[in-house]
């Protein structure tokens, strides 16, 4: 036993084991998130949702996965084969890579980076580009349209997202997510304490996370009614599945990041820390899903206007107020 623990202390083995655990867990959780979202949306629509496969449709994600794998893998004749095939995998890679720095409990994280916040935002921001590569490689006008919109949106919304994530960084005085959580356990959650900038930064962060994850009301890259399926128009089978799961994982991890940065992470009144972290993540994800199935979509220019006219100045103002607060506090 001790030998095993010693083995885990080796950073390479530690990273490998935790990486394997987190990726496996995330992929299966993502599958069941689709089940949850379908049931949830069905309740909003006064429908039943999946009922036929397994009890209460619980085996539906497995059936979906099998279907995805079975489907014919079509590569358009004039597509750039290499990029077309690589894009879904790269997208999923970037989506999963964020998980490395999410602290689920004091000890349970793959890598306690000193610059965890920076790493998470940078990697999740990169997710837009393999999508664009795939869209360009499909040689389809709708896909190209969607890809261009995706890049424009990713670039624009990256700025308010980073600025709003800087608020807890400034307050805690650290870029490490673990230290930010510990600071919150000591001084109170940033969403509520100090009152003022924290809650606004939290709302801003979740809003931009919605936009980064291409979720309604910000799903203009995909925009089924306009662009058929946006960047993924030409993708079939498991490649499309990879894109879809990357999107879900992105939303899920953005919720987890929001929980860690603003809602005190694993902090809770009793019980094991992991439970509280997962509970907060799930609550945020339900909120995101609820918004998705309630609102209509913005137009692309309105989306950009919202970002550059309201969100970026607002985030800058928040950061300024936070800086003043920290300065006064000393």
């Amino acid at each position, binding site marked *: 036993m001790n030998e095993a623990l010693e083995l885990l202390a080796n950073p390479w083995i530690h990273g490998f084991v935790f990486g394997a655990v987190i990726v496996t867990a995330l992929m299966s959780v993502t599958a069941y998130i689709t089940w949850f979202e379908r049931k949830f949306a069905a309740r909003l629509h006064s429908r039943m949702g999946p009922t036929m496969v397994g009890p209460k449709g619980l085996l539906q994600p497995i059936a979906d996965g099998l279907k995805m794998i079975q489907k014919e893998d079509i590569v358009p004749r004039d597509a750039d084969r290499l990029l077309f095939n690589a894009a879904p995998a790269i997208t999923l890679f970037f989506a999963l890579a964020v998980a490395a720095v999410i602290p689920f409990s004091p000890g349970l994280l793959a890598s306690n980076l000193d610059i965890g916040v920076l790493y998470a935002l940078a990697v999740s921001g990169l997710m837009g580009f393999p999508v664009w590569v795939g869209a360009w490689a499909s040689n389809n006008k709708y896909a190209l349209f969607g890809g261009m919109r995706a890049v424009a949106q990713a670039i624009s919304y990256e700025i308010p997202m980073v600025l709003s994530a800087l608020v807890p960084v400034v307050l805690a005085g650290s870029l490490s997510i673990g230290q930010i959580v510990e600071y919150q356990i000591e001084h109170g959650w940033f969403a509520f304490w100090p009152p003022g900038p924290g809650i606004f930064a939290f709302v801003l962060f979740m809003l931009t996370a919605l936009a980064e994850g291409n979720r309604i009301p910000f*799903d203009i890259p995909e925009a089924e009614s306009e*662009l058929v399926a946006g960047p993924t128009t030409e993708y079939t089978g498991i490649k499309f599945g990879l894109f879809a799961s990357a999107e879900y994982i992105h939303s899920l991890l953005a919720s987890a990041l929001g929980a860690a940065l603003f809602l005190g992470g694993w902090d809770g009144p009793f019980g094991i820390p992991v439970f509280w972290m997962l509970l907060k993540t799930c609550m945020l994800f339900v909120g995101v899903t609820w918004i998705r*199935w309630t609102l*209509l*979509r913005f137009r692309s220019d309105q989306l950009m206007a919202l970002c550059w006219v309201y969100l970026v100045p607002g985030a800058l103002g928040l950061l300024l107020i936070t800086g003043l607060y920290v300065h006064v506090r000393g």
Partner: protein
Amino acid sequence: MAVAETPPAAPVTPAAQATPIAPVTQVAASTGPLVPSGPPRDGPIPPIRAARTPRTDCKPTKAFVPEPHLDLSTYEADADLMTLSLGPQHPSTHGVFRVVLYLDGEQIVKAVPYPGYLHRGVEKLCEKLMASNITPIIDKNDYVAPMTNEQAVNMAFESLMGVEVPVRARYLRTVLAETQRVASHLLWLGTFGMDLGGALGGGTSLFMWCFRERELILDLFENLTGCRFHYNTHTVGGNRHDVPAGWPEMLHRTLGAIDERLDQYLGMLEHPIFSARTKGVGVIDADLALELGLTGPLLRASGVDHDLRRDAPYHAYAEVDLKVFVEDAGDCWARSKVRIEEMRESIRISRILVDNLPPGPICSTKPLKMVGQHKLPPGQVYVGIETPRGELGTWLIGGGANKGSSPYRLKIRSPSLHACAVIPYVLPGCSLSDAIAILGSLDPVMGEVDR
């Protein structure tokens, strides 16, 4: 030979086109030969579109005056124009319809619609069929509102043959037409939500809610006629199915429930995202709407107070005090508002009339026993009625070589055809997202456009 007096207008330069909504008098000759197949015309060529003063009370999103027959060589784009074929297989064309968009970035420069993918030759087919056989075929034209289709064609036959419709049938037809209007507008609202919100989002929620209520109306019709979609309940001289026991109460229950939920839909119009997506988008001014022959909610949303149910009453519309809703803006929001208000008015009328159904027969002609029982006299009639989409006209020619019970020529003047004809005028200057919203707000049914 009378030709419109052509004012000596200067040829339009690209710079003039770029100025916001300046009235443009364009001469066809300046746009180059666009008429490959038309015969040459002697004398000066009249202007394609008359000069028009823009409305000031609404905010058009256009950057230049739309020109349906714009010569693309006169347009100066920053880069190459992108040609995007929207359809024939596309989630938001509401059927099989194709619009070729010429895009400058995301702005539409020119839109060329290509209907005809759903052409089934209904008019030709009608020349071989009797009136009673035509009804179920006409059902499939506007498959969203089959009741009003049947009424339009049967009224034309009644008019030509001089058949009087009993009072009870006229009341019943009015009730059916108004209930059908509610169902049709509900389907429009649902699909419009899909256009604005996508298949994986809030739009679907709206779609499902509207379908939930539309199902109730279909149940109502099934109870009456035995069919959910294509009813075949109207015939020359009246209706084929009388009201079953308990049907009026069922109608009151159904429409009462829908009426309560309409408040939620009206509230939705004020939602910031819905307003942002629809206000000032796709403005059709009153002159253009009239000239293009737009009718129904599209015309009323452009500020023209015109409704055949009130202005030329047929059925039992003369018996009720019909309120007509008019909006001035002419944009997608106004069209939504007009349709939702119309639903409420239709519900009110249906509930009044079903309570006052007079007793008596529902059909003045005997059931069809043999071929040739209904003789069509020679002559031509035009009958137009107000369907959920506007004026659905039937031009019926009897006699001729078909000296029997089938029409010599039957022409259907469909409101959706004119609604689609507006596309080249309103799409230019909008973005691709707006184009989808505009297409949805026009509420075309392709089965009716192509026939």
